[in-house]
C-alpha cells in the first residue's frame, strides 16, 4: 500500500526545510499539574536534523514534554531554547512547530487539501499566500505523503493510516523548524505501523527536519531514531543510540524496559559475585562489597554442564517462543524466578536441573525488592551502573 521510493520527493520541499531545521535545547524543565510533577528536571539537547524518540511507559511525561516544546503548555521551571533563543517569549504561533497529534485532530469539516493548506491559509500580512499557490503546495505535500487522488475526501472517509499521513502533511506544510509527533502510529495495526515506520524514516532523511516522536513501543524507537530518550516517571533515565540503551542500560528501569531481562538479588564479597552461598564465577570488578542486583538478558546466557561457579535452578515452566525456547527457572532457597533462553531442541523437562552463567550482565546497587530506581541508587550511594560484564571472556577473567 505504501510505495517505497527514496528520491521521489520534490527537491524544493527538501531544500526549504533543511534551511529551517533548528537546534533545540531543553534545560532543567519541570512541569507540575497542581502538585504532581509530570516532568521533573528534564534536560535534553537535540541537534538540527536529528530524529529523536521519546520512549517510556504510559504516564511517564512524554506528551507533556512535547506540549511544552510546542508551546501548548508552559513549564513551571527551567527553559527551552530554539537555536539559542529562549522559547518562553514566543507564542505557539511564533514557534513554527509542526505538531502531529495522537488523535490526528484533522479538521472534520475540511477536505484533505484544505486540511493540509490550513496553516498557509491563515497567514496574514506580508506572508499572505494566494489560494492557487496554497493549493499547489498542498498538492505537492499530498504527493509527498503518497495520497495523491484523495484531495477531496473528508477525514471520516479515510483509513487510520491515511489520516495519519494527512496530519503529517498538514504539519509539514508550514515548513516547521521542528516536527513533533505524538505516538504517530499508536492507533494503527501492526502491519501498517511497520510500513509507516520506514516511510517516516525516508521522509525524515529526505526533508531533514529536526524531528521528535513519542512512542511506548521500543522496537519503533530503536529501529527509527538516531537517539532514544528513555523516560520514566517524569525523568529522563537515559539518552543514547539504540546500541547504547540496549547494550549498556544505565539503570534497572532501562534494563527492564528495553528488551527482555532477568534479575537476581546477589551479593559482592572478596571480588566475586555470590548468589546465596555459591559463587557465580563472575568477577565483581570495582563493585563495593554488599548486596546488589544482577541483570542479564535471557538470550545472553551460556548453559553449563558442571557447576563450579554458576547459577543453577529447577525448570518451573517452559514455553516455545518462535525459534527458541524460554525456560523459567527457580533458583536458590527463596525460589527466585529467572528466565533464560535455550535452543528449541533443548530437552528441558519440568523439574530438571539446569546450570547457566550470564555472558553479558550488569550490576545495580540495590537490595531486594523493586523500589523506584532513582531512590535506591541514591540511598545505596552507588553509581548508576556499578559494574558490567561484557562477553564470556570478561566474565571469566
Amino acid at each position, binding site marked *: 500500500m505504501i510505495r517505497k521510493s527514496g528520491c521521489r520527493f520534490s527537491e524544493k520541499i527538501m531544500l526549504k526545510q533543511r534551511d529551517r531545521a533548528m537546534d533545540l535545547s531543553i534545560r532543567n524543565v519541570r512541569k507540575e499539574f497542581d502538585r504532581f510533577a509530570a516532568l521533573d528536571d528534564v534536560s535534553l539537547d537535540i541537534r538540527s536534523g536529528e530524529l529523536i524518540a521519546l520512549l517510556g511507559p504510559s504516564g511517564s511525561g512524554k506528551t507533556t514534554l512535547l506540549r511544552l516544546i510546542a508551546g501548548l503548555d508552559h513549564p513551571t521551571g527551567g527553559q527551552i531554547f530554539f537555536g539559542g533563543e529562549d522559547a518562553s517569549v514566543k507564542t505557539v504561533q511564533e514557534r513554527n512547530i509542526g505538531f502531529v*497529534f495522537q488523535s490526528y*485532530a484533522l479538521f472534520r469539516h475540511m477536505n484533505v487539501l484544505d486540511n493540509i493548506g490550513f496553516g498557509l491559509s491563515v497567514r496574514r500580512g506580508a506572508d499572505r499566500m494566494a489560494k492557487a499557490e496554497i493549493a499547489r503546495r498542498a498538492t505537492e505535500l499530498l504527493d509527498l505523503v503518497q495520497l495523491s487522488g484523495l484531495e477531496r475526501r473528508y477525514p471520516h472517509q479515510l483509513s487510520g493510516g491515511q489520516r495519519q499521513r494527512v496530519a503529517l502533511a498538514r504539519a509539514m506544510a508550514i515548513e516547521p523548524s521542528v516536527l513533533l509527533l505524538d505516538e504517530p502510529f499508536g492507533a494503527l495495526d501492526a502491519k501498517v505501523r511497520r510500513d509507516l515506520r520506514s516511510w517516516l524514516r525516508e521522509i525524515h532523511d529526505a526533508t531533514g527536519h529536526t524531528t521528535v516522536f513519542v512512542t511506548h513501543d521500543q522496537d519503533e524507537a530503536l529501529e527509527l531514531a538516531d537517539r532514544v530518550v528513555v523516560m520514566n516517571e517524569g525523568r529522563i533515565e537515559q539518552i543514547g543510540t539504540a546500541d547504547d540503551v540496549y547494550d549498556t542500560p544505565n539503570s534497572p528501569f532501562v534494563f527492564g524496559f528495553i528488551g527482555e531481562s532477568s534479575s537476581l538479588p546477589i551479593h559482592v564479597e572478596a571480588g566475586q559475585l555470590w548468589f546465596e552461598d555459591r559463587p557465580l564465577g563472575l568477577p565483581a570488578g570495582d563493585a563495593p562489597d554488599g548486596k546488589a542486583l544482577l541483570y542479564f538478558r535471557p538470550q545472553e546466557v551460556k548453559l553449563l554442564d558442571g557447576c563450579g561457579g554458576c547459577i543453577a535452578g529447577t525448570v518451573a515452566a517452559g514455553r516455545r517462543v518462535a525459534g527458541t525456547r524460554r525456560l523459567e527457572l527457580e533458583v536458590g532457597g527463596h525460589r527466585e524466578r529467572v528466565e533464560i533462553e535455550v535452543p528449541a531442541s533443548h530437552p528441558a523437562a519440568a523439574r530438571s536441573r539446569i546450570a547457566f552463567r550470564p555472558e553479558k550482565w550488569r550490576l545495580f546497587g540495590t537490595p531486594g525488592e523493586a523500589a523506584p530506581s532513582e531512590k535506591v541508587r541514591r540511598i545505596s550511594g552507588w553509581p548508576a551502573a556499578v559494574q558490567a560484564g561484557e562477553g564470556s571472556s570478561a566474565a571469566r577473567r
Partner: protein
Amino acid sequence: MVIDQPFSAAGAQTPPPRSAVTEGRATRVALTVIALLFLAVFLVLPLVIVFLQAFANGVGAYFAALTEPDAVAAIQLTLLVAAIAVPLNLAFGVAAAWAVAKFEFKGKAFLTTLIDLPFSVSPVISGLVYVLLFGSQSLLGPWLAAHGVQILFAVPGIVLATIFVTFPFVARELIPLMEEQGTADEEAALSLGASGWQTFLRVTLPNVKWGLLYGVLLCNARAMGEFGAVSVVSGHIRGLTNTMPLQVEILYNEYNFAGAFAVASLLALLALVTLIIKTILEFRYGDALSGSTGH
C-alpha cells in the same frame, strides 16, 4: 454407537432464533398502543383542535382574525422580540459554551449552574424579578422615571424577560458538544499559526454549526411562545405590549374563540415547523448532534 449431539445440524429441528427482547408479542403490542394513545390524546388531539377551532367560522374569518390590527401588532411585536432576543442569546450562548467547554477557570461550575437557572425557575418568578428591579417601587424605578426610560410595561421589559427565559438554550446545546470534541482541533490550528480569532471562526464554530442551528431553533420557538415571564412585565396593553401568546389569552377571555385559535394556530404552526426542522437536523446530522441533550 450413540453420540451425544446437542447441536443438531438439521435445520428443521432448530427453533427460530429468539429475539434478545424477551417480552412476548402481546406485551409489546400493548405497550406500543398505550404509548401511541397517550401521544394522540395529549399531543396530536390538542393540535388538531387548535386548527379546527381556528377555521370554525370559515377561511375568511380566519384571515380576518389574523389581519385585525391588534393581532397584527401582536405578531409584529413577537417577531421584534425574537429578532432581538435570539441573536443576543446566540452570542451569549456561544461565548458561554466556549468558555465552559474549552477553558479551565475558577467558578466554572457556578457559571454552569447559573446558565441552568432559567430552567429551574418558574417563568412567573423571572418576570417578577424584573418588576422588582425596574418597577416604580424599586431602587432603579425613580431614576428610570426621572430619565424618561420606560422598561416595565414596554418593549424593553418584554425583551429582557424573553432573553432571561431563553438564554440556556444555545449554551446547553453547545456545551456537551464542545466538551466532547475537546481542544485538540483548536490546538492543532494554533500550532499551524492561526490566531485565536481565526481558530474560533474556522475551526470551533464549523465544528458545532449543526448543534448551534438546533439551539437557535429551540431558542426561537421558546422566545416566540413564552407566556409567563412576558405576561408579568408586559402590562397587556392592546396593540402595544401584547405578544402573540398574550393576545391569545385576551381573545380567549373575551370568548372570541375563533380569533384566539387563529392566532394560536400560528404558534402551533411555529411549533410544527420547529419540530420538522429539528427532525431533519437530527436525521441528517445525528452524529454531530449526539452530544446534545433534549429539552
